[in-house]
């Protein structure tokens, strides 16, 4: 038999020329064109994005960057949780907000921007201008597929971690501070959870949180990386940072990928004998900041006799009857921004450093010699917390010197509030 005769003739209908398209609208195809043509993502990835529900907690620098990428990429459902309002000091890094937005709820504005960026998402993005708590967290996590931790505090980070393990959801977590950023995906298949690494949040909450400087691009970069990992989770691509912690050092321009441990069998949350079965503040510590907490035992707050109010200090400045000088315990970088002229800068770090104490003592001693009859020293910081701690430390350092040590109540913030409304705060 000749080969020709084996060919089955096409039926009429199959010859008929028709067009086809994927299960995406023409508008969607046009909008997502540049990612649809990528073989690793393609139509399959786009449909997965449309069906995925993303929960973003935190609408700050990380959240701005992550959310606009997620909605732009076609996230089916995007819920943004944040109860903060926009302040001027946010704008250098929270790139979706403008000067005109100051005072408005971050989540509300970010949802607006996402809607404007992409009106084609399956559901309109939703803003929840409330705090994340043990009461609402688990339900929110269960209602979504991929969770993004864009928060700025240890309490919320553990709350989300616990909820994600209890509800079996992957947690794409990023952070940014100063020149550093970190990223990892917790609880994705068998990757670690946060408590596998650090079981007790209270230990991390002891970190000082008044060092809240951050370079603008760092959270933007980390938030974009976070969106990328969240898209990979949703689209079924290989998830790079499950079980791997990325550390970005912006000062040296280096990225480090640190391979984390496997899940900890002794983890109090995801381990075999877990003790954490519900969301509870008992396991989460506190969401208020501690100041530094080292060697001053117990309560370091000063009694009223050891404090001077801004208005009393202003009066003392004018009268000049009691020679007095100021010790400013902020960092040298902060001292350059604003402060009191002729004050002596002794940064908190130098007071805490055993090796620096001798130098501190010499500087103070010299200053006291320079001002004849000086018998009192006022310690100043930004908000009036470090200054109280500093008075305790200075009393030790100057134990044998007859000098009265007080702190400026409320720090420079108090000075602005009660004496000089034009004084800048930062």
């Amino acid at each position, binding site marked *: 038999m000749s080969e020709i005769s084996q060919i089955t003739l096409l039926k009429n209908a199959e010859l008929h020329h028709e067009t086809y398209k994927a299960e995406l609208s023409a508008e969607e195809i046009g909008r997502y064109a540049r990612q649809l043509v990528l073989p690793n993502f393609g139509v399959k990835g786009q449909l997965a994005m449309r069906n995925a529900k993303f929960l973003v907690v935190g609408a700050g620098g990380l959240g701005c960057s992550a959310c606009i990428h997620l909605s732009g990429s076609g996230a089916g459902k995007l819920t943004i949780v944040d109860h903060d309002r926009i302040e001027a000091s946010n704008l250098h890094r929270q790139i979706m907000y403008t000067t005109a937005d100051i005072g408005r709820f971050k989540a509300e504005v970010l949802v607006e921007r996402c809607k404007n960026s992409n009106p084609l998402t399956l559901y309109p993005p939703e803003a929840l201008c409330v705090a994340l708590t043990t009461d609402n967290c688990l339900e929110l996590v269960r209602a979504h597929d991929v969770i993004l931790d*864009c928060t700025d505090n240890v309490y919320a980070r553990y709350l989300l971690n616990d909820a994600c393990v209890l509800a079996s959801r992957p947690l794409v977590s990023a952070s*940014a501070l100063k020149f550093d950023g970190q990223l990892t995906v917790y609880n994705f298949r068998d990757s670690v959870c946060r408590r596998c690494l650090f079981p007790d949040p209270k230990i*991390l909450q002891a970190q000082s949180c008044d060092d809240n400087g951050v370079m603008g691009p760092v959270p933007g970069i980390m938030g974009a990386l976070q969106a990328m990992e969240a898209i990979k989770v949703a689209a079924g691509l290989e998830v790079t940072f499950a079980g791997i912690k990325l550390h970005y050092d912006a000062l040296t321009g280096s990225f*480090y990928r640190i391979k984390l441990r496997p899940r900890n069998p002794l983890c109090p949350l995801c381990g075999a004998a877990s003790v954490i079965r519900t969301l509870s503040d008992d396991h989460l510590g506190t969401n208020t900041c501690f100041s530094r907490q080292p060697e001053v035992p117990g309560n370091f707050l000063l009694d009223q006799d050891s404090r001077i109010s801004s208005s009393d200090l202003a009066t003392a400045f004018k009268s000049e009857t009691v020679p007095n000088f100021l010790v400013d315990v902020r960092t040298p970088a902060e001292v350059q921004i604003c402060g009191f002229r002729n004050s002596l800068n002794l940064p908190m770090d130098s007071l805490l450093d055993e090796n620096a104490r001798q130098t501190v003592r010499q500087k103070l001693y010299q200053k006291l010699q320079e001002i004849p009859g000086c018998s009192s020293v006022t310690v100043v910081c930004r908000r009036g917390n470090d200054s109280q701690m500093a008075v305790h430390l200075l009393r030790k350092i100057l134990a044998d010197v007859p000098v009265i040590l007080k702190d400026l109540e409320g720090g420079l913030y108090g000075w602005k509030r009660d004496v000089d409304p034009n004084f800048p705060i930062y």
Partner: protein
Amino acid sequence: MDVNLKFLALAKDLAGTGDATIRITAEESPFTVGSFLAKLIRTFPRLGEIKDQLILAHNLEYLDLQNPSASFELKEGDEIAVLPPVSGG
């Protein structure tokens, strides 16, 4: 032998440097995770302030500080990265 140290984030501030080398004598090795951390803190005392908040990585692999008696082998030119978790957002 010399081992390279890489301090990141707050660990960099407390150590006062991003990079350092630390000399290891023959008697000291093999180290346990705990004894290595102790040596780090002896050399860079202010790291003690965050000793419970550190991640140590040996050639970019996690060292389990919750299991301080586990020993590990250091070779000339190995790198130990020292970093605390960053929490800001």
